[in-house]
């Protein structure tokens, strides 16, 4: 694989090169928070971000999408598939989010295939950006998903002062940068990368010990931490869970969705829609005649925590990558790292 360097002020050349062949999405900063959005000029791009509100999951497993359309004509149904083959490039994804995508890749391609996710994933180029300024909430180092990336990228950028180190990870990555005049990287650039990695590792404020965590979580279903989380007390300095579902919507590995039919006003045609769902909402575990398998709030927050500790049905594929988004958005200040600690009996 090839290694180059590119001056920070020349990043617009790279962007313009990408824009020739792809729709480019990247981090922008419209207000106080950053978000991934379509980039059409260098002015919008904001590569010095710490974390975005929503993970780049939204490009592959969108909050809402139509699966297929159908027509109801004189009592006969005809289904029609919707397909799209748009090529996109995502610029500046941090390692935690790339790892989350790798996990979703595994999840959506086991046993049964999810053609919609895979189709979008196949048509996307990942230009990752190593994280040198972790947010105060992130703990990717503990989860083995950061701060620097080793896999899952087509092109990887690393901030090494006045320049970016540009590494390609796949043949596709090599093809994309063909035709660009880039400087070959030297040993000093690599040394600088190593130095930056060490510096970044020292900046983390949150940690989580994952040894045996799935097993510990599975075997402590009646632990008092769940009562504290769901009913009274809270964990650390948090309040009990409000079941708002914010954590699930910002989580880069949460995959749960709802499927429903949306009928046109004419009642003759409609679409089958899938929309992200949250295990924190009451309706999630409901079945016919009103029986609910997770009626208690503590059951629901326990389920989410187990899922993130790799102890639920998704296994490691839906487990935490340590991006810290859920800690940031939680109105009750629930901190997953503190829950893990308390579960181990360390608090």
């Amino acid at each position, binding site marked *: 694989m090839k290694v180059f360097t590119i001056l920070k002020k020349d990043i617009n050349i790279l962007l313009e090169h990408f824009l020739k062949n792809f729709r480019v999405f990247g981090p922008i900063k419209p207000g106080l928070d950053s978000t991934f959005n379509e980039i059409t000029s260098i002015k919008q791009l904001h590569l010095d971000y710490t974390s975005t509100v929503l993970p780049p999951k939204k490009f592959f497993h969108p909050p809402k999408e139509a*699966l*297929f359309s*159908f027509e*109801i004509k004189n*009592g*006969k*149904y005809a*289904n029609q*598939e919707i397909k799209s083959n748009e090529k996109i490039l995502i610029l500046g994804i941090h390692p935690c989010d790339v790892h989350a995508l790798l996990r979703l890749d595994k*999840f*959506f391609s*086991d*046993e*049964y*295939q*999810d*053609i*919609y996710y*895979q189709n979008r994933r196949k048509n996307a180029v990942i230009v990752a950006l190593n994280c040198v300024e972790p947010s105060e909430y992130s703990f990717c180092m503990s989860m083995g998903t950061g701060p620097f990336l080793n896999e899952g990228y087509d092109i990887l950028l690393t901030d090494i002062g006045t320049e970016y180190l540009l590494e390609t990870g796949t043949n596709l990555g090599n093809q994309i940068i063909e035709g660009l005049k880039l400087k070959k990287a030297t040993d000093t650039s690599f040394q600088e990368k190593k130095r930056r990695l060490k510096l970044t590792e020292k900046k983390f404020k949150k940690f989580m010990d994952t040894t045996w965590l799935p097993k510990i979580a*599975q075997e402590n*279903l009646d632990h008092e931490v769940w009562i504290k989380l769901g009913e009274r007390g809270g964990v650390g300095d948090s309040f009990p869970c409000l079941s708002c579902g914010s954590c699930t919507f910002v989580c880069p590995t949460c*995959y*749960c*969705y*709802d*499927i*429903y*039919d949306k*009928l046109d006003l004419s*009642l003759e045609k*409609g679409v*089958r829609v*899938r929309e992200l*769902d949250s*295990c924190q909402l009451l309706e*999630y*575990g*409901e*079945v*016919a*005649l009103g*029986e609910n*398998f997770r009626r208690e709030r503590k059951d629901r927050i326990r*389920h989410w925590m187990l*899922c993130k500790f790799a*102890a*639920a*049905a*998704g*296994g490691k594929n839906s487990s935490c990558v340590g991006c810290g988004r859920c800690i940031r958005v939680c109105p009750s200040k629930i901190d997953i790292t503190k829950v893990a600690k308390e579960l181990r009996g360390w608090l």
Partner: protein
Amino acid sequence: MINEYFPNLANIKEIIKETNNTNTYILEFFDKKLSNDFSWTPGQFMMLGIPGIGESAISISNTQNGNLIYLTIRNVGNVTNYMSNMKKGESINIRGPYGMGWPLEIAKGKDIIIVAGGMGIAPLRGLINHIINNRKNYGYLEIIYGARTPDDMIFKYEFNNWNKIKNSTLHLTADQVLSETPFECKIGLVTSCFPMMKTHHRNAITLICGPEIMMRYAAKCLETIGFADEQIYLSLERRMKCGIGKCGHCQIGSKFVCKDGPVFNYADIKPFIRPL
């Protein structure tokens, strides 16, 4: 690549009225290839959809000639209520079959106790038929079927056949018996039939399906009379949206009910079934 979410059209060949709110629909795929390739094991389910209304997971109660699919449906929700007004010859969407069925291999050579409550007999009917067709492979058969009233019982036309199965007993029980019934029916819960069982737990396997509360009590009672958790299998109910282990709604512990179930060994899921 196959799009698993994309349903296939099926024709309603026949409707059998079971009770005043339950019908059995006999379906056949329009697509001849799909129809001929259809294969299933008892305990599996189909995703049945009506465009504009939604989808619902329904277990297969029987098949005929390998391509006619029997789905027994009680109208309790949006999809099933709409179904109850459908007529012979209309078409609906189905996809599947999904899930793992009853443990037919493990049950070989063992005495079999079938405990069903209400609509829970639907996924077990296929199993009973399988046992009738392969009678030599299985030991004593005990069928315990309970419902709210004898009128709520489904597959009443099968009771005579089930009574005639060699080496078997059929216990029918209802919470309330208000009028005379054409078949012998006790009063009580399914668990009240356990003392009358002729089967010993030594070499037996229990297969239960019904409302979750009934399954919990049945499993608990079986434990007290000497059954090990590993000898008990339950078929669970969840509101499935995808049927292929992706939407997450049916998770129980570290399993998906749709993909790893709906039939589970009691030992695997015991901690996740709410305590009594």
